Every structure is written in C-alpha cells, then in structure tokens.
C-alpha cells in the first residue's frame, strides 16, 4: 500500500518544484503511473482480502474503487488544464496540490482497516473538495454550494463518530477484518434503532438519499470540472462503500429499519429522473441523474442479497466512469460557450462530430445499454429488488424508462438539430479532450468484457 501512498504524497513536492511549463505534464504522467501500479490490486484472492498491513487492506469491493480513484487523478488534471490556463503559477500548483491531497485521502479511505481511520479520512476528504468548490467555482452561488455540501455531510456524519466509539467500547475492536467475524446480531430495541440511524445517516447523506440530496446539484453544478468529476465519480461511492461495510454490524435491525429509506430511494429514483427532464442547466441534469443512479445503489445495499451487492458494486464503478465522462463533455461545452444552458449550444454534431461520438457513447452508457456494466449493475439490482418484493418492478421499470428519456433528451438537445448561430466559430476539439473521453470510455468498454472484476466480494 505504501507503494501507492508515498508516490501520491510525493506528487505534491514534485508539482511545487517543477518548471512552469512542466507542471501539467509531470503530474499527469506520474499520476497515470500510480494508477497503473494500483491495477495490480485487482488481482484478488477468491475468499479473502489482501491484507497489506495492520492499517490497510483491499478486498474485491475496495480494489475496483481504488483503481477508479487513482485512474481519475490524471483525468482530472487533463480536464483542468484549460480553465486554469489564465491563473497564476502558484494558484495552478495549489489546485494540483488540492487534487493530490484529495486523492491521497481517498486512497487511504478506501483501503482503511480501522473504521475510525475510515471515518477520519471520510471527513478529511471534505476539506480539499470544499476548497476546490468555493475557490475555483465559476458563479457566486459556489459559496452557498460549499456551505450546503459541508454542513449536510457533517450533520450526517457526526452521529457516526458516536456510534463507532460505542461499537468500539462494546465489541472491543473496530478493525474491519475482525469485526466481520465478531459481529453479533442486535435486537430491534429503541437504542439499537438509534445506533442503526447513527451509523447509516452519514452514508445516506453522502450517497445521497432522496430527501437529503439538496447539496448535490448545488455542489456538482458550482464546482469546477475536476471537482465535479471527483464528486460524482468517487465521493458518492464513499457513501456506498461505507454502507456496504457498516451493514455487517447492524443485522437484523436492517430488516425493519430499511423500509423508510427504501421508500425514499425507490420513489426518489422516479422523482429525480423526472426532474431531469425539466432541467435547463446541463450540469444540473447530470447531477440529478447521479442522485437517481445512487438511489439504486441504496436500494441494493439495504436489500442485502448477494446479487444486489454485486449489482451495487458494478453500478458504482460504472456510474463513476459514466458520470465523470458526462461532466467532462458538459465542461467541453461550457469552455466554448461559457454557459451551461442546454438550449444555447445545440446541433453540435455538425460542428464537432468526434465529440458527438463521445456524447453518444456516454449517453448510451448512462441509459444502461447492454453489454456495459451499467446494465449489469442495474439489472442485478432490479432482479434482487424484484425478489425482495414483486411490486418494486413498477418503480424500477418507470425509472429505467425515464432515465432513457432524459439521457436521449440531453443527447438530442446538445447534438442534433440545427445549430445555434453563435457556435459557428467555436474551437475545434482538442486532442487533450479526445484523449480524456477515450480514457474514460476505454475502462468502461473493457470492463464489459470482463465484469467479474467489478462484481465485488460476493462473486
């Protein structure tokens, strides 16, 4: 594990000491090398986890998330080059430092053994993200967005600290490897209900659950491109990962307590997908689609069947790559038109046909086209929820249809039709942007050839 942590930490001195014309090149290349190192962790043992030390371990659930995190840093750096080109050198280096700190904390979070260390790093990831959103966002609403983001997550996760300390006192350990064998069933008393709520609310806010999702559209829309990418791709999955880890301690209370959150997620899926159909802002549409996809993951984790866990893991990885790619595409629009309004930049297919190809592939992945892992994740979750209760198929089916509707609406509005008069003289697609889209799409397509990598520990 040190062979990933130390290089990532060393990216920061390297950025500060690089020559001005080399900062982007150095940081991108070296972060790409780090991601290639982390690919070795995908070679997982069948029944057990890879334990690197007392502090770090990786498991078929956390290894794909770790690889996604490390893969995303070079992509974030590539995406940020354009909007930071007018900043001073120190600010550019500071931005790269923020991204690298965030990366370091995320790597340690996904591989933490002790749940308290997981919690501390979970909270610590908020700080670089807050700095990125409030300092480098584009509109004045970014201050409000940062506030919502910080305080929603803090309010949700403070009870988690209390719950973890309580579990440490009663069980004697919070080391995840021990506690999965040591967990005793807890009865459904009032205090255990509060324990369940305290453990889960942090992750519900992070996912986000439908009633507590207000921070997400604000934060995603106001963040700069790297902030949006890391928020959508990785920070939401922290919630899913945490939920999958902590539900081991909470049986069988989950059978009773899951109902309100299942209802919120199932109905919230349909509601947020419908809201997507009426958005004027492109990034807001992608943000609400993130809420909808994550609601599926919440449903899957609360059902707790083998198939649903496999579906949840696959869906998390798939959504990470797809959502990040859609944000990059939206950013390529924004850099040219300087507005996020969808109707202002229409008919791009005639002017930027290669970018239209990436838009098409990203949209097809978003609406869970077979054989992508998006479909595998969604299908497993739909099947598992059908076995939980036959009636869920109504809501799930409605959600799939509305997802297809708004994704195609987004594709057709931005790509098809007559182009607006002012986009005749936009810049053509840069090689950097095409490389960015390719690097997003290539893992997604390759994983559809070998999905068992992302199907999690149950496979």
């Amino acid at each position: 594990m040190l062979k990933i942590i130390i290089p990532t930490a060393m990216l920061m001195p390297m950025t500060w000491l690089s020559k001005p014309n080399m900062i982007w090149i150095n940081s991108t290349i070296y972060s790409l090398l780090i991601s290639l190192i982390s690919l070795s962790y995908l070679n997982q043992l069948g029944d057990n986890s890879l334990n690197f030390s007392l502090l770090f371990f990786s498991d078929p659930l956390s290894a794909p998330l770790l690889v996604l995190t490390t893969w995303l840093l070079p992509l974030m750096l590539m995406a940020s080059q354009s909007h930071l080109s007018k900043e001073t050198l120190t600010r550019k280096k500071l931005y790269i430092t923020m991204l690298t700190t965030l990366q370091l904390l995320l790597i340690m979070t996904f591989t933490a053994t002790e749940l308290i260390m997981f919690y501390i790093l979970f909270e610590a990831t908020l700080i670089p993200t807050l700095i990125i959103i409030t300092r480098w966002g584009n509109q004045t609403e970014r201050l409000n967005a940062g506030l919502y983001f910080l305080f929603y997550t803090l309010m949700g996760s403070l009870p988690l600290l209390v719950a973890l300390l309580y579990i440490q006192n009663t069980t004697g350990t919070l080391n995840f490897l021990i506690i999965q064998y040591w967990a005793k069933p807890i009865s459904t008393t009032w205090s255990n209900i509060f324990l369940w709520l305290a453990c889960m609310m942090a992750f519900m806010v992070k996912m986000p659950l439908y009633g507590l999702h207000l921070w997400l559209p604000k934060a995603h829309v106001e963040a700069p491109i790297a902030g949006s990418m890391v928020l959508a791709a990785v920070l939401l999955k922290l919630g899913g990962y945490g939920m999958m880890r902590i539900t081991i301690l909470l049986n069988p209370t989950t059978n009773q307590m899951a109902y309100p959150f299942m209802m919120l997620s199932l109905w919230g899926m349909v509601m947020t997908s419908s809201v997507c159909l009426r958005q004027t802002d492109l990034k807001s549409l992608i943000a609400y689609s993130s809420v909808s996809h994550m609601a599926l993951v919440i449903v899957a984790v609360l059902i707790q069947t083998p198939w649903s866990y496999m579906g949840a893991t696959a869906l998390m990885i798939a959504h990470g790559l797809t959502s990040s790619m859609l944000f990059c595409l939206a950013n390529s629009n924004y850099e040219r038109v300087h507005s996020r309004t969808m109707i202002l930049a229409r008919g791009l297919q005639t002017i930027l046909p290669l970018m239209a190809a990436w838009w098409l592939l990203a949209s097809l992945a978003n609406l869970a086209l077979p054989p992508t892992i998006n479909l595998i994740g969604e299908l497993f979750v739909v099947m598992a929820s059908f076995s939980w209760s036959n009636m869920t198929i109504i809501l799930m089916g409605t959600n799939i249809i509305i997802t297809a509707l708004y994704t195609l609406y987004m594709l057709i509005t931005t790509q098809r039709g007559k182009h607006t008069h002012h986009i005749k003289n936009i810049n053509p697609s840069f090689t950097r942007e095409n490389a960015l889209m390719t690097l997003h799409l290539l893992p997604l397509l390759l994983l559809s050839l070998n999905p068992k990598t992302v199907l999690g520990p149950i496979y």
Partner: protein
Amino acid sequence: MSFPKYQPSRLATLPSTLDPAEYDVSPEARKAQAERLAIRSRLKREYLLQYNDPSRRGLIEDPALIRWTYARSANIYPNFRPTPKTSLLGALFGIGPLFFWYYVFKTDRNRKIFKLERITTSTQYRRIFYVIPGITSWVCLHASCEWKLSTQQSSLPYY
C-alpha cells in the same frame, strides 16, 4: 369593386391597417407607440451589430435568457409561497407516495415472509426440503452412473 368585409379568425388576426380604432388614436398613445418602436429598433440594431460583427467570438448575451435561467435554477425559493395548490401537489407527489408505497411493499413483504416462514417452520411441509432434493439427487446419480457405464462399456475390449 366591393370586397367582402374581412373577418378575422383565430390564426389570421385583424391587421392594424384594417382596424378602424387605429385611426382614432390620441396623440399620447401615438407617442407611446413611437417610444416603444424606438426601443425595439435600438435593441434590434444592437443585436444586429453584434450578430454581423466579424470579430465576435461566442454568444450574444441575452439578458432575458439570463434572467430566465437564473429564475429557473438559482432563484426558486424566494419565488415560492405555500399556496393550497402547491401544498396539495407537494403532499400528492412528495409525501403521499412514500406512505402509499410503504403500505404496498409492507403488505407484499408480509405475505411473502409469512409464506416462507410457514414452509420453513412447519413439520408438515418441511419434508419438501429433504424429500424432493433427495429423490432428484438419487435419480441424477443413478442416471449419471448408468450413462457412464454405457459409454464405458463400448470402449472395453471384448474378451
């Protein structure tokens, strides 16, 4: 020649030149019309200047569009007031379905769990769990043995 009197319809409104009220307009109304025309032509001139400017890069800012997107995305709460209609819509689509689906799913789940527990805990039906698998595995074992023997016998040499 006398033409029939022009009747306006829904898709073909009366043009202002055929409207007799147009010719009796007071001087103040005429002045107001002239002012509005001046504003419209100034805006159109500004737009056309920007539209035909060869060194323009990017879109022409439309303040109306900016206001519209701001109102739709960031300025919703100051323009919201709880009225009977909005409260009804909120309850119908936001709160009601949660309780509705809770009752639907709880009923369905209770029925499912009851059926499952009845089968797994009753002694009468429990035999399903070991008789049927036992019979099927016995049949499969025999069938596989016979198939194996039949394929083997053809390769044994005749003594």
